């Protein structure tokens, strides 16, 4: 049941094959069986979920079902505020924080009757690429539990792959939806900057963050995106650009579409198995009628340093609100205000967060602002213009998502620079505010998923989902599921 599409589950609810309550219980049992091993879920909200499922069944009984997502179980990344249910951001700083309000993303999905099963594990404050930087312990990759699920939305990606929910929300600042989607063999979409409201989404880097969706196919991402996309007056960076019906054009013909493949992406740093999958994806899309074109993105080499300066500078500013005064962790017996700030923050934040805050503070400090932050903002314009130029020649770009399949746990946790460099294919997209998704495109010889990335021009989410869907109609990679039998605990 947990490998069925959202459309199939919706039909099952509609025809009475099963109730929303039964569906909810099924997924809760999946979490129960596998979460001790995978550690994807920080907080399970079984009681609330069953209440919501019952409400869905009642609506359906009264012919008042809310639509395709009514009764469909989901998980929220623990970066989204959920009223009455703790929102930890994977950090000790917020380990007991209960938000008084729902994020817009949470509210909109709730309004469509989707059933929240819980909050997923993540790198602390969305800072990381492996979900190893979590106060609640690392999440694991369901395909091989000695490997990372990716990050920062590792819990959500791993949960969808392992069948803990039909879909899950995530956030992506430098690749935090797309990279875990690639590592876990699921489909993950980062919308255009401003497409999805950031209200109630705890901020990491305000000019880069964007909320998005994980599901097992593009066809499943579409209804979830329909629920959350659109202007929100409570988010001052929210775009008024009109939304589409993201499911309407899934089956559109690809003939006439020009898809670019970037020369600079295929360098020594790219694992040959990943390169092969991307080339195979290009061939499939060509068979589907698209024209594949070689293009250049000359500014590729600048993207990682530019991204990290901007992201870390903005993070240092955003995380200054965590001072022990109004919410979050406060140190015991503070001797002064200064002591309260310093000890609350030093105790509440993990190493990676502190590293990033310090680098960001340095980059913004007097005498260094122009050399670092100012310079990075100029490079950001060059990188953005590079993509804009590419999109005058092609409609979409096909690229690797990651340089290699999922790392082993412990491999990069103490090597920040190499961890940062692995964002090479994803972080430029956030700098330019473009929409992009990762879709399963194959497996390594060792059985780890490999993803391919589709990048679009601003507000072209429909096109991305259309091409991904065409790919998924011709391939079976997205249908593969990890064998969780090895570690699932069936309770008696």
């Amino acid at each position, binding site marked *: 049941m947990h490998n069925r599409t959202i459309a199939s589950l919706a039909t099952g609810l509609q025809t009475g094959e099963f109730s929303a309550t039964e569906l909810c219980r099924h997924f809760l049992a999946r979490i129960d069986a596998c979460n001790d091993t995978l550690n994807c879920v920080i907080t399970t909200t079984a009681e609330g979920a069953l209440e919501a499922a019952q409400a869905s069944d009642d609506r359906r009984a009264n012919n008042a079902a809310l639509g395709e997502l009514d009764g469909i179980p989901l998980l929220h990344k623990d970066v989204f505020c959920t009223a009455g249910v703790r929102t930890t951001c994977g950090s000790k700083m917020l380990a007991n924080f*209960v938000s*008084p309000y729902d994020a817009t993303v949470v509210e909109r999905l709730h309004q469509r009757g989707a059933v929240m099963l819980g909050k997923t594990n993540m790198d602390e404050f969305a800072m990381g690429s492996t979900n190893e930087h979590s106060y609640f312990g690392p999440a694991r990759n369901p395909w091989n539990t000695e490997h990372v699920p990716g990050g920062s939305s590792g819990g959500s990606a791993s949960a969808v792959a392992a069948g803990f929910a039909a879909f899950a929300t995530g956030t992506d600042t430098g690749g935090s939806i797309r990279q875990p989607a690639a590592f876990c063999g699921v489909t993950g979409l980062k919308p*255009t*900057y*401003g497409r999805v409201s950031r209200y109630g989404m705890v901020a990491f880097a305000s*000019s*880069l963050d964007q909320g998005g969706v994980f599901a097992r196919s593009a066809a499943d991402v579409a209804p979830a995106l329909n629920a959350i996309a659109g202007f929100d*007056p409570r988010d*001052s*960076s929210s*775009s008024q650009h009109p939304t589409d019906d993201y499911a309407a054009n899934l089956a559109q013909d690809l003939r006439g579409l020009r898809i670019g493949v970037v020369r600079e992406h295929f360098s020594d740093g790219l694992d040959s198995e990943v390169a092969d999958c991307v080339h195979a994806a290009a061939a499939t899309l060509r068979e589907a009628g698209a024209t594949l074109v070689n293009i250049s993105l000359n*500014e590729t*080499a*600048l993207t*990682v*340093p*530019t991204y*990290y*300066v901007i992201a870390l500078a903005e993070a240092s500013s955003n995380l*200054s609100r965590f*001072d022990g*005064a*109004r*919410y979050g962790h*406060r140190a015991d017996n*503070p*001797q*002064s*205000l200064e*002591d309260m*700030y*310093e000890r609350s*923050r*030093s105790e509440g*934040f993990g190493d990676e967060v502190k*590293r990033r*805050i*310090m680098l960001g*503070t*340095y*980059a913004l*400090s007097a005498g260094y602002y122009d050399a*670092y932050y100012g*310079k*990075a*903002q*100029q*490079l*950001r*314009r*060059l990188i*953005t213009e590079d993509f804009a130029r590419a999109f005058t020649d092609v409609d979409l770009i096909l690229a690797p998502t990651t340089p290699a399949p999922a790392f082993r746990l412990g491999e990069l946790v103490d090597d*920040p*620079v190499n961890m940062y*460099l692995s964002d090479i294919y994803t972080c430029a997209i956030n*700098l*330019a*505010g*473009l929409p992009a998704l990762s879709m399963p495109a194959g497996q390594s010889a060792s059985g780890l998923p490999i993803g391919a990335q589709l990048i679009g021009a*601003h507000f072209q989410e429909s096109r991305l989902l259309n091409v991904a869907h065409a790919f998924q109609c011709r391939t079976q990679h997205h249908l593969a599921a990890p064998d969780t039998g090895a570690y699932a605990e069936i309770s008696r």
Partner: protein
Amino acid sequence: MEISEVQKIAHLARLSLSDDDATRYAGELNNILELVERMNARDTDGIRPMSNPLDATQGLRADEVTETIDRELFQSSAPLAEGGLYLVPKVID
């Protein structure tokens, strides 16, 4: 980056570091700064800095009250609050 500079930055960020931590962070931060130096390979004379990826500007709305304050609810997560105030160590002697 020297240890003393790391301590200065830590103070700006209101973080307290032991000397061991500061030494460790100095090494890590230096590695990251090496990565960041790559930015200097590209000339950016005359390029307008970009702060928003869509070059969007701040939207405005009518200056009308539209939100409600539920102080009790909002302060329910506070480490220490009383009479509508957040309590912190004494600031003024």
